């Protein structure tokens, strides 16, 4: 075991230690430390990815002196390393583009606490990506929930308080269901580590004893994680939360944190239960229906919004629908498309929230479309970045969104029958709806205002913000043009994943 094998563990530890250390730092130092942590995690994850690309198999890393069925462990493979790299890159870009505005939302004495939340949220995301233990999943999901709640409520007005309360209540339902599911699964298998759990589950499926409880466990855990990741019928908390939180928090919440829950769900499906059992238990059709209806109803709701941030929040619901559509198709190809969509959506959605903030900022802090006329001329970089991100959401070729839709269509076609028709219709309809509202937004930010409104002089956009936004545009275009190697990593990673 070389030093590089330890890097994921170092990443997790670094984030947690930074979170603890931030509590005694000065606000400026706290911000600097957050940047350093995100950068270091990105570098270490990239090195881990390089290592795992050379290895054939995923390797376990024991947290303590005791091997698999007894002690905690994390498991590092290509897919995990790819996700960690992608998410930490998105986090670093969001921090570079959004950290400078936090003083508008967060009072100086609470900056430290805000940085603690970011560090620990990153730690929890990393643990959820790497962990191989179901109970660790529960504990760190709770850390992530508390961190995201604090990320929202740090901007203290009535709207965020109400949004956070709703957020907490929904997430409490999710946690309760998840914990009950884990408790039942422990009761029928006697294991908490994922590999022995899978053996026990296979045994249950073969002998048929405790098969009823197993179905209930799958339903409980799926429902819990679906609530937490804003799957369509449970998305009620999402729009308010994303719309009223500080832009950096919205970027982190919808870009990274909601994806971590879905990654856990995929891990639960593929590694703990096994996709074949999931399909035979009729869970996938449910996810499929929810995904399709989320794609369409989320887009329709987005069209009806008059507030640009709420519109983006609803489009987030629609995009989560794509991920669940991929899972609901139930083939390896579908899961791969879902995983790729997770990366693309993380990159696109964070940049959408942050560039929207820039556009709103030059329009006298008004979020309604009629005040945004001409914002694309008042802040040229943000306008360009927003346009390209919107193109990716619609699915124009050469952007990440196009590849996602292509892959979803291909995996749907491979199945045949009514699924094929439904996937194609849903994709077409949702593309149409997406283009309606994003075209409307892009047109309104580039339209000359009817009468010269007297906007207050905005703050100047820092060059680093523009650079960060353009970097993430490059990322989106890279995901559109150079997607082949990433898709291959996902494909080979998924084989060694379970």
């Amino acid at each position: 075991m070389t030093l590089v094998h330890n890097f994921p563990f170092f990443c997790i530890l670094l984030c947690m230690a930074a979170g603890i250390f931030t509590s005694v730092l000065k606000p400026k130092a706290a911000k600097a430390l957050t940047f350093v942590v995100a950068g270091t995690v990105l570098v270490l994850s990239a090195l881990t990815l390089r290592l795992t690309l050379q290895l054939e198999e995923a390797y376990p890393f024991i947290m303590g002196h005791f091997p698999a069925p007894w002690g905690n462990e994390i498991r590092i493979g290509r897919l995990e390393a790819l996700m960690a790299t992608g998410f930490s890159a998105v986090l670093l870009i969001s921090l570079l583009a959004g950290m400078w505005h936090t003083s508008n939302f967060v009072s100086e004495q609470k900056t430290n606490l805000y940085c603690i939340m970011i560090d620990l949220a990153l730690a929890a995301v990393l643990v959820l990506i790497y962990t191989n233990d179901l109970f660790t999943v529960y504990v760190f999901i709770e850390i992530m929930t508390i961190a995201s709640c604090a990320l929202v409520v740090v901007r203290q007005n009535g709207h965020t308080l109400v949004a956070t309360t709703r957020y907490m209540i929904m997430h409490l339902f999710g946690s309760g269901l998840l914990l009950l599911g884990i408790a039942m699964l422990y009761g029928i298998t006697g294991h908490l580590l994922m590999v022995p759990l899978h053996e026990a589950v296979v045994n249950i499926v073969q002998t048929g004893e405790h098969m009823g409880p197993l179905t209930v466990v799958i339903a409980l855990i799926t429902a819990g994680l679906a609530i937490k990741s804003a799957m369509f019928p449970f998305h009620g908390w999402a729009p308010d939360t994303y719309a009223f939180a500080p832009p950096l928090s919205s970027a982190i919440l919808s870009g990274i944190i909601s994806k971590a829950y879905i990654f856990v769900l995929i891990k639960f499906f593929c590694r703990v239960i096994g996709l074949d059992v999931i399909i035979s238990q009729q869970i996938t059709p449910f996810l499929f229906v929810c995904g399709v209806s989320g794609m369409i109803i989320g887009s329709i709701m987005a069209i009806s919004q008059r507030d640009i941030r709420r519109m983006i929040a609803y489009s987030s619901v629609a995009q989560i629908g794509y991920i669940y559509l991929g899972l609901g198709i139930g083939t390896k190809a579908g899961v791969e498309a879902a995983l790729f969509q997770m990366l693309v959506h993380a990159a696109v959605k964070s940049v959408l929230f942050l560039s929207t903030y820039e556009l709103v900022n030059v329009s006298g802090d008004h979020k309604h479309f009629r005040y945004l006329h001409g914002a694309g001329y008042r802040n040229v970089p943000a306008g360009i970045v927003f346009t390209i991100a919107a193109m990716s959401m619609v699915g124009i070729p050469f952007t990440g969104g196009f590849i996602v839709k292509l892959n979803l269509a291909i995996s749907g076609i491979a199945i045949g029958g009514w699924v094929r028709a439904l996937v194609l219709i849903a994709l077409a309809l949702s593309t149409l709806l997406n283009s309606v509202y994003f075209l409307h937004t892009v047109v309104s930010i580039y339209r000359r205002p009817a009468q010269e409104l007297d906007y207050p002089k905005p703050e100047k956009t820092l060059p680093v913000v523009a650079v960060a936004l353009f970097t993430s545009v490059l990322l989106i275009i890279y995901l559109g043009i150079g997607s082949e190697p990433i898709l291959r990593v996902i494909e080979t990673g998924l084989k060694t994943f379970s």
Partner: protein
Amino acid sequence: MSKRRSDWESRPQARFRKWYKEGFLALDNEIIDHLTRTTELPENIEDRLIAQQEEMTSRQHERTLALERLDQYNMLAWARTRGRKAISRLYVILALALGAMMIFFLLETVALMPRFGDPATPGANIVSERYITKGLEETGATNIVAGMILDYRAFDTLGESTVLFIAASAVLILLRIDRNKDGSPVQELIAAESDDRHYEPRNDRILQGSAMILTPIIFLYGIYIILNGHLSPGGGFSGGAIISAGLILYLDAFGFDKAGRFFTYKTFTWVSFFSLSFYALAKAYSFYCGANNLPSGIPLGTPGAILSGGLIMPLNIAVGMVVACTMYIFYALFRKGGL
């Protein structure tokens, strides 16, 4: 006679009929009216400034309340329309149906779960077998549960302490009242201080006397529970909760001024910082050694002795301090938004 009448009105059927006719709002308004009917003014106001402050806040309160009443009246007038009532009733029925359905399915599941108390449950497998038979020798702790959570599954417990830390930070974000840039208190803080004077003790002999006797005993008991965590039931979490109960009792009896002599916001930050960093570093060292197959070199001691169990006792102490600080700061923040 009137008493009987009110008895009759509070019967379940009558309440149900009222609910059916007017929805939840009527019932809740009754409760709110009942609660807000008597508002006592504080007595024994010594400080003139604080009296003025209180008068100002109460006037503000009245004004906002009146405005809100008006707002609420307008909104309730809208809310009492038939459509909304129907929706809320539908929601209640759907929610009840969902709850009942859930209980039904879970009961079906429970009927198929392994039997209660059965020696051959799936839980009694190689995992628990090793914890029981080898636990003493591998972790050095007589308390198998302590050995399990602080050695075999220590990563979970590290996460758990982080949950407490992050919860304390979140409550600080929500409730801590900032000061001005130059350190002078803001208006809100002065208001909270004056509000908190209702809860400050006025040299209550009974409370202070019993706190004098009880606090040291509670502290000693908490410390005993923490130090014996690896030998007997208990450990950092329970011991820390007991110590924080002692701290809260002291605070209630003697007030923030006296408690502030040994426990300020700085104490909280530094104590939790040191305990958590010790925890994280110690466990990081042990994880690193474990994963790379290096000997950790921490002696386990003789089982049953107080100095045994390797890292378990120091970790218990660290956890205990974090828990005590967190619980105490929860209480202080709930009371007046700061220490």
